[in-house]
């Protein structure tokens, strides 16, 4: 039986990925701060991925449940608002969960030989633009994206393909919590669609997946006119944000 590891597996995109993987016959190891109740075929690891000691304590046990044919680093949190208004502790947590922990886990899994097959890092569409109103989030997702690009060849030499996923806004609780006032929910992609596209890309070893047509158009615009798109993001996001949310 094939085995998959998914972080941030209880809500949103991660939850949908777990469901899809079970449908496809995978045994899934799920890591999250809270376990989801009643999922057959899922082994839950409850861990606060912002807590270095907790991550270090979990890793040997996690490696023991491998090796994994697919690893998806999906866990992420956000912080939106004026950069200077969000507390420093929230930024520390955000950077640890979004950037540091997936890198630490990836290196540990590779060193232990517990990853074989495919690995996927879930970054963000923000990688293709500036993101005023979520500067620390943007920093964490850029860091993760470039880590994925950097390790692609060295990990391939050890038989593991690396896929960078950059999803745009999804119809999840997470997105709703951080969206600016008056954002159009209909523009957000269904998590199930994003999950399918990302898993298919990861399992076929593609380098990059930007799920959804709107997201791909946006990424293209961001590549061609980075500053114009960043200004547009200011009007679209930053100037419409209410109080800071983290």
């Amino acid at each position, binding site marked *: 039986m094939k085995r998959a590891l998914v972080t941030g597996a209880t809500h949103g995109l991660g939850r949908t990925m777990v469901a899809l993987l079970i449908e496809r016959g995978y045994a899934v190891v799920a890591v999250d701060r809270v376990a989801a109740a009643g999922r057959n075929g899922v082994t839950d690891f409850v861990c606060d991925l912002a807590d270095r000691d907790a991550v270090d304590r979990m890793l040997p046990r996690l490696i023991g449940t491998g090796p994994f044919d697919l690893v998806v680093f999906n866990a992420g949190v956000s912080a939106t608002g004026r950069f200077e208004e969000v507390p420093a502790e929230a930024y520390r947590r955000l950077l640890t969960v979004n950037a540091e922990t997936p890198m630490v886990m990836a290196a540990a899994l590779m060193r232990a030989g517990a990853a074989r097959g495919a690995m996927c890092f879930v970054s963000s569409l923000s990688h293709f633009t500036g993101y005023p109103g979520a500067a620390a989030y*943007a920093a964490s997702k850029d860091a993760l994206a470039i880590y994925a690009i950097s390790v692609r060849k*060295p990990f391939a030499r050890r038989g593991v393909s690396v896929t960078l996923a950059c999803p745009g806004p999804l119809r999840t609780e997470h997105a709703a919590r951080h969206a600016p006032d008056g954002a159009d929910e209909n523009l957000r992609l269904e998590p199930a669609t994003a999950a399918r596209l990302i898993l298919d890309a990861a399992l076929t070893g593609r380098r990059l997946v930007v799920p959804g047509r709107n997201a791909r158009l946006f990424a293209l615009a961001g590549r061609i006119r980075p500053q114009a798109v960043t200004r547009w993001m200011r009007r679209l996001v930053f100037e419409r944000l209410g109080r800071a949310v983290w």
Partner: protein
Amino acid sequence: MTKSAPARTEAQTEIGPRSPGMTDRVLITGATSGIGLALANRLSQRARLLLTGRRPEDAVRSVLPAGAAYACADQTSPEAAVAAIEAALARLGWDGLDLAVLNAGTGFVGDPADEPAARLRATLDANLIAALLISRALYPRLASARGRLVLVGSTARRGAADFASYAASKAGLHGLARALAEEWRGRVEVRIVHPGPTATAMHAKAGHDPGRLGRLFAPPDTMAMLIERAAGSARPVTNLSFSRFAWRRAPGPR
């Protein structure tokens, strides 16, 4: 090609802006060696300086420009580094800051599949998390002086197999800078400069031997000159890759 030339002169005349003057209060992190020290030396005649490094003051005093204030701030402990810098600013009585150059950085070379967690964390702490938290802490002072924040990234920010976490940390700085440049527009000018390979002690510290290629690296003085120029430019992002520094040399000491 013909199009880009006039655009550049325009940007340069526009900047001429305020190159740092004697009344300016300037913070440079990681200023005890390499590019940071070269920058400190360039500005020491023209501005009041607060420099930081990870070593205690008596170990570095002899290399620093005379008259510069110093704070020991080891960025591998980001929160402690923020506190040390804020304490030093308070001690100097600087309630505003005209220029902050966040230059401190560290990195290690190696196979990312073998990278120990402690190294990965130290790299992200020093290069990204500390710089982000320092930027946040400096905001009130920068805003009150309508100052300028310059982040020193790296051309490795686009990805590097031999120093993956370093590349990631510098990409993170890039993401921070392009968001902040827009967010703080009209309040604090934000710039990020990405230096290419520079002949500093960093390569040896990182366990990297560039071999004969090292002869092509930019001298720190040249890189510092180009960074100073980029800091005054109208563009938020400047890449100082090989083609930008290969034919230039900073003028000798004045």
